[in-house]
């Protein structure tokens, strides 16, 4: 049997996520422990939301003001992640990953309580004549959606992606790929996509509507490459070729083949990549699972290249603490598992925390451990 190592380079920063702690100087929220009397949406809003969004919804609540920030001003409308009841629920459930202190209220508010809060928030919004999305907007409902098309540049100055691919999750994340080399370009949160190419003669963009919460400029590049015996293949020498995309109620993602750099196109390995969002008690996280499909007649291994990062010695969980700034630090947990079918699988969970402390690592490790 030929040996093959796979090498995952996580060069700089990680997927971003949210910490509740940033929004509250006390402790992490806990699920309600006792039966409290039923309250209406306004009461729940005062209790859970007004600290940041303020009683009148203008986003200048005392807690957030103290932090030197401003929350979404409901009175202005223009919700980044959508203002339909469905979309608001998604935001409240998952929180907003990235730089925003908006936490997940999953486990804090019961389902019907969220509906009551949403009802109240919508009274603070400006009235709109037509709540119906435009007829070219693709909406992700209870099942992930994969969409293909030409994508606009993900950030100013980048190139457009002529063969682009979006994976939208029901929680409101959009993973954006370039099909030509099966590269993850970035992750967005919010509404899914507008099919501008349904207008005119076609050929216009499949325009993602979410806000970029992570992009390549942030530096994360996961590349899987074969390592024949002892020497690494030169960077980029092998080719990654899309094999399929999938979207079922349970999972969404894609598979690609790693092909021989000699140009003969020999398949070295088949990689299965799933993407999802994950709710933790520390906030919403992004998650990618990368699995080397069995049957490639090769033994595989995964390695991490870390730049300016810290890592734990844990056997099952390794920590990549990356990109610190004044508001916190992006942390990626990498777990290695063997699946039932014998395939090797790595799961990358990325979350944003206010600080990287041993007690946080321990708590997260406990929660994420398989």
């Amino acid at each position, binding site marked *: 049997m030929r040996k093959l190592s796979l090498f995952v380079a996580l060069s700089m920063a990680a997927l971003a996520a949210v910490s509740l702690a940033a929004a509250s100087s006390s402790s992490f929220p806990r699920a309600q422990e006792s039966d409290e009397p039923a309250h209406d949406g306004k009461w729940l809003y005062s209790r859970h939301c007004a600290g940041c969004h303020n009683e009148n919804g203008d986003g200048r609540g005392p807690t957030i003001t103290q932090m030197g920030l401003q929350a979404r001003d409901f009175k202005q409308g223009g919700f980044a992640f959508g203002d339909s009841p469905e979309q608001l629920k998604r935001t409240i459930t998952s929180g907003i990953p990235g730089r925003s202190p908006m936490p997940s209220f999953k486990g804090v508010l019961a389902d019907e309580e969220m509906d009551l809060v949403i009802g109240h928030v919508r009274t603070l919004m400006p009235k709109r004549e037509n709540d119906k999305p435009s007829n070219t907007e693709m909406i992700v409902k209870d*099942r992930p959606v994969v969409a293909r098309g030409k994508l606009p540049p993900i950030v100013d100055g980048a190139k457009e992606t002529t063969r682009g691919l979006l994976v939208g999750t029901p929680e409101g994340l959009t993973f954006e790929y370039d099909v030509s080399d099966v590269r993850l370009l970035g992750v967005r949160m919010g509404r899914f996509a507008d099919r501008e190419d349904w207008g005119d003669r*076609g*050929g216009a963009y499949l325009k993602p509507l979410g806000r970029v919460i992570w992009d390549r400029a942030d530096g994360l590049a996961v590349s899987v490459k074969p390592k024949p015996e002892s020497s690494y293949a030169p960077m980029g020498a092998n080719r990654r070729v899309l094999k399929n995309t999938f979207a079922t109620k349970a999972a969404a993602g894609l598979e690609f083949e790693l092909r021989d750099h000699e140009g003969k196109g020999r398949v070295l390995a088949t990689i299965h990549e799933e993407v999802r969002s994950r709710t933790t008690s520390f906030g919403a996280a992004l998650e990618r699972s990368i699995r080397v499909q069995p049957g490639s007649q090769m033994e595989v291994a995964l390695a991490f290249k870390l730049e300016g990062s810290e890592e734990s010695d844990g056997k099952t969980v390794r920590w990549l603490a990356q990109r610190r700034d004044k508001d916190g630090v992006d942390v990626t947990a990498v777990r290695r598992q063997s699946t039932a079918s014998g395939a090797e699988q790595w799961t990358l969970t990325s979350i944003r925390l206010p600080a990287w402390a041993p007690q946080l690592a321990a708590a997260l490790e406990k929660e994420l451990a398989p």
Partner: protein
Amino acid sequence: MILPLFFQAAAIAASEADFYKVDYLVPPQGERLEVGGFDFLPDGRMVCSTRRGQVWLIENPLAENPADAKFSLFAEGLHEGLGLEVVNGEIFVLQRGELSKLVDEDKDGTCDRIDTFSQGWGYSGHYHEFGFGLPRDAQGNFYASLNVSFSDEKWWHGRSVAPYRGWVLRIKPDGSWEPVASGARSPAGLGANSKGDIFYTDNQGDWMPACPIFHVKDCAFFGHPASLNWTPEYRDNGRTASDTDAPKVERARAAIWLPYDWSRSTGNLVEDTTGGKFGPFGGQMFVAEMTNGYVLRAGMETIEGEYQGWVVPFRHKVGSNVRLRFASDGTLFCGFTDRGWGGQPPGDGIGRVRWTGKQPFEIESVHLIGDGFEIRFTDKVSRAIANVFATAEVKQYDYNYWWEYGSPLQHVTPRAVLSTALSEDQLSVTMRLHGLEAGMVARVRLPGVLSESGAALLHDEFAYTINQMPGYPQKTAHVAKLVEQPEARESGNEGVLFLTHGDALAAWNGKGWQQSEVKLADDKKQLVVNAEAKADDWGGPAINNLGGETGDLVSRFEFGDIDFSVQFLLPENGNSGIYLMGRYEIQLRDSSGVTQLGPGDCGGIYAGADAKKWPGSAPTFQTFRGAGRWHSLSGSFQAPRFDAQGKKIANAKFKRVMIDDTLLQEELEVPTPTAGGYAGEVAHGPLRIQGDHGPVAIRGVRVKSRENVDERTDWVKIFDGETLDGWQISNDGKWVVENGEIVGRGNASHLFSPRGDYKDFEVRAKLRINGGGNSGLYFRTKFGPNWPEGYEAQINSTHADPVKTGSLYHYSLLKAQLVSQDTWFDYHVLCKDEPEGTRIQIRVNHVLVNDYLDKDRHHAAGHIALQQHHEGSVIRAKDLEIRELR
């Protein structure tokens, strides 16, 4: 001739619907089915892919009542889907960048996995790079065809900037693929016959004089050069195909050229393999046609090993047909989409054509014999064959193979009918003709054919593409004949005058017009300033009126024979127009949804004030793609001609008018100004944009004068093309001769002609200024350091100095940027003393842009000189000539 009238009066009128009925499936409320491909699953369900990248399952597609066919969404999010084929129950869909297999693993009616079956051909991102499919041959190979793009939307030259654009591909059952044949332009439909031979249809445009059907053979080249970029001969030598030179590559001959009045936008073709369930046309091909909404019927025969054949109209006004497919019960399914082009309603959805069981009286088939045709009919022909003879109309024609967009019919020649004879069984007529030629299409009309029971033909015309006569030596003549190519209309921007670049309003007069980017207002009825838009390569912001108190926008310059192009944008119900010479109006209008086009619709030539003298001319198509979108209007115009006494001897003429890539008017004479045009007819007049009928925005106005021939022979060279001997250089400037051109670089300096006594004269030169450069053509100037005395005709395209080319510095300034940087232009200056002062006229690219009388006669006589303005500026001059006036 009384006979034909008598017989026609006796003919029994029949309509297509008596024999073939059309109905329409009912998609779910609010859904538009823009069909790209469809096929049937083994269980009888139809599966249909759309331009929206959706794939629909249709239960019960053969239901008697079309409303009983039920739609469910199987997949969405594909990058279009302009070809679909079911193979052994598996669904294959062609996306822009790949051929995919759609899998429903858990059988819940929703696709959950999309396998990339084949990929690797190029896609640059241009809208026109559609991929079409998807028939299979006997070996199970798929075929796909790839459109070229247009990098220059001003003249619609097709380009192939990504691999195998303009090719037909063969995709093998293992997913590997190979390019098979090149030379396609807009190959919107493919089809296979029952032998497994593959055919494709193309669309009229550059190098495609009309819409053809080609047999796809390995290594064939169909005629559009762009695709040759990917052949080894070009690729390995770093060559790219020319837009305007015919390539020296052997061309395949189209099996059938579809008459343009029958097919303007051709889709796919299918063979009737229903075994008679669709009527009497088994084994023949049916062809989808979008613009007219026709289904055409065609047959081919093999002569000297090559397919050629005939075509007839089959069914009119079915819908914007792009895809056809037969169902097992003999129903012909028709898939529609016309988004962005405008076709016959319905513009989307699925129609069904079904045979009623009644036998139509039709031309069944046509067979070419050496000197005529054997024409078979579906029913017995009346024995009154003399009437057929008397009324038959036969003409032959061919086309130009050239880079122009489409070709008019060429060499249209009537052919005399020598004899007609009815066969013993009365089912066929043999028609012998005088002078029938290969390398031409024969169009034959047979109004006199009546059935024995007195029925007239349902369709009495056919067109046969004769590449080869049976029994004759092999001929190589093409129907699309190589002709001397028209002069390239544009090489770069040479000869073009830009009227909306730089400080654009300086080139126009007009009340209420401003220069800013615009967009559609939220109500779609108005235009508003779009502060966010960035200036683009159309030469900066649009100029527009946003409604209110506005008048027409009239160019400060006057033109005669010109090529022109203008971008325009209208709001909903917008109405404007462009008057050539201020007199002859091309209507610009929101004609969305208009099916009966008139002269008042977008691209129409408006009627005259006296509609009896000039009723106007409707555009051939509805091309308005929607409010708030930029459209490109281009064309070629010829001013009226006058004799020496001022009497008109030739009418004004629109040689062609196009909107985007669609030809709307061609060789159209206009005998009077259109309503609202300036009175009288003259040799030169301004461009005039109608501004009092509501908001409109224009940009990218380009005019190229065709009055560029000066037949006077008494021009004298000032510069011999070799040396600067005798010339004087001030300030130690760097002036040299390179390639027969004077080139000025380096520090500021002037180059003075040897003679210094030019007084009354015309001087002309070809000049080129670089980006950021600044120069001037001086005259009546005196040698001296620094900025010399004298008149200066400014040369400046993009230097910060707001005074641009065409200006007479200090006296009469032009701030519009009329010519591009790095582009040769013709400069012509006239200077002469008149009783009231010194007359100075400046022409740029043969258009008078400045006419000034210097009453104070500032400069009397002197040198001709060129300026080098600053380090970094580069001025080039050649063909510097003078003609002294005495």
